[in-house]
């Protein structure tokens, strides 16, 4: 398995190196000739990403979204609306335990009717995405390559197909179908290092410019009668304040945020506060969850996968790490190996 990966990686690197080699030989009088095209590549990738990001905000649609990963198929109905710079969304899980999630800008409310529970949460990580594209001088393009692959019809709309290929083995690739008029992502495949589909998600039904009413969604979002309301007080913190540091950074992954998350009393009674340290390379993200080591619950270090999402647990001193992300297991291992706590 490893040999196969290495040989493929070697092939891939050869393929990457070969045109450069030819270029440097044939264009030896002007060695910078390759640079403008790289800049152009980065620009086209950034433009494409920005368009995709804008589209995710400036849309009103109703659709059925289906996610297929590792032999499981899960689906949800989504209502999305954008009014005057404000976004609201309702996601109704159609598979498994009943669950509806409402989002209003950075506020998230999750209804779990089986447990008669409502969970209020606030987040800001989503907004960090454009900064990653804008500020960090082609950072995403340092690790991904854009390749356009024509058009296809998905959920009744014409879509452009683009391939985002990773430039190293630390992240997965993506094939993205974006609706032609406004750039909404209508289908997404996550590809492993060998190009196999790990996970795919697509709208099976989509109604663009749907008459979704913001006030109606907000009204539903506030209906919590007869439910227990849980409001985890997320405390923004820094990794160093919590004593955590990562001396050797993992290629392309930059820390985005760090939160202290109080234990949720319901499911895991013995748990105390945990720290969530989030990293992203702009497309994929990794969460490092750190909590006090509990001999009872943390009985075995393990690695698990759910489609593209991988999870690794590790006992580090008096702490227990759960690393989770849409990245290869090797990337999580690198995070786990590098992570240290100040005594």
């Amino acid at each position, binding site marked *: 398995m*490893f040999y196969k990966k290495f040989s493929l990686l070697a092939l891939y690197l050869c393929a990457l190196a070969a045109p450069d080699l030819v270029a440097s030989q044939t264009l030896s009088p002007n060695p910078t000739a390759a640079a403008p095209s790289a800049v152009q590549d980065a620009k086209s990738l950034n433009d494409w*990403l920005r368009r995709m*990001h804008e589209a995710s905000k400036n849309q009103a649609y109703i659709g059925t979204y289906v996610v297929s990963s590792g032999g499981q198929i899960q689906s949800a109905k989504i209502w999305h609306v954008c009014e005057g710079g404000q976004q609201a969304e309702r996601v109704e899980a159609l598979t498994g335990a009943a669950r509806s999630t409402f989002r209003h800008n950075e506020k998230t409310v999750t209804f779990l009717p089986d447990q008669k529970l409502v969970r209020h949460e606030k987040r800001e990580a989503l907004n960090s995405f454009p900064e990653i594209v804008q500020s960090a001088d082609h950072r995403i393009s340092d690790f991904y390559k854009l390749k356009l692959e024509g058009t296809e019809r998905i959920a009744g709309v014409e879509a452009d197909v683009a391939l985002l290929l990773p430039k190293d083995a630390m992240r997965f690739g993506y094939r*993205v179908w974006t609706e032609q008029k406004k750039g909404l992502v209508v289908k997404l495949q996550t590809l492993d290092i060998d190009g196999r589909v790990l996970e795919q998600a697509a709208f099976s039904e989509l109604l663009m410019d749907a008459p979704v009413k913001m006030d109606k969604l907000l009204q539903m979002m506030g209906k919590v009668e007869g439910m227990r309301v849980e409001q985890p007080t997320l405390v923004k913190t820094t990794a160093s304040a919590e004593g955590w540091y990562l001396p050797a950074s993992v290629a392309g992954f930059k820390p985005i945020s760090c939160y202290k998350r109080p234990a949720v009393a319901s499911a895991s009674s013995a748990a105390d506060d945990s720290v*969530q340290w989030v990293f992203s390379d702009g497309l994929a993200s990794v969460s490092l969850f750190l909590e006090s080591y509990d001999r009872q619950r943390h009985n075995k270090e393990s690695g698990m996968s*759910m489609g593209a999402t991988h999870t690794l647990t590790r006992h580090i001193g008096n702490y227990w790490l759960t690393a*989770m992300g849409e990245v290869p297991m090797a990337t999580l291992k690198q995070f786990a190996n590098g992570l240290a706590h100040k005594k």
Partner: protein
Amino acid sequence: MTQDCASPEMLSALFDGQSGSEKVLADLQLADSQAMHSDWNCYQLIGDALRSTSSAGLVGADPAFLHRLSARLSHEVVNPVVTLAVLTPGSVATPTALAANDHQFRWKLVAGFASLSAVAVLAWALAGASSGVLAPQLAQDATAPTLVTPSPEGPMIRDARLQELLTAHKQMGATTLQVPSGFVRNAGFEAPRQAGR
């Protein structure tokens, strides 16, 4: 001699109602023999089996066996309280009303089996861990249920804590690309099929 040889056929004919009434008496005289009696029982059994869909109420089983069985049953000491004490130590009050206890017993038994089988499945799924160490820990951790179900991709792990972490990860770590799918999914993690992957 010829009578003896012909008798099973005659008996069969009598059984099937093909024998004439004038022959019945003569035929019945044959029923004296032990072999005839056994054959009669046998045909009756076959007939009942052919006519009925269940084996309940079959007559004509070996009388000696039935006798032995009922004798043994009457001597059997049935004491469910002992079994109950073994299955759920320390959790059972002294039974005063038998009917109430019987009801409780069945539920305890079901619960006992359910938790036992859950532990067994877990022990099987998390291969490589010493099951002797694992089982008591998992049995104690009944507040946070971990569900392991087999799937074509290997054992599937559903854990309340993992679900919480996944939700947290999807909320805090969501990029534009990952947003919708993060809210669609319930956690169902696959245990590794091979080490080192």
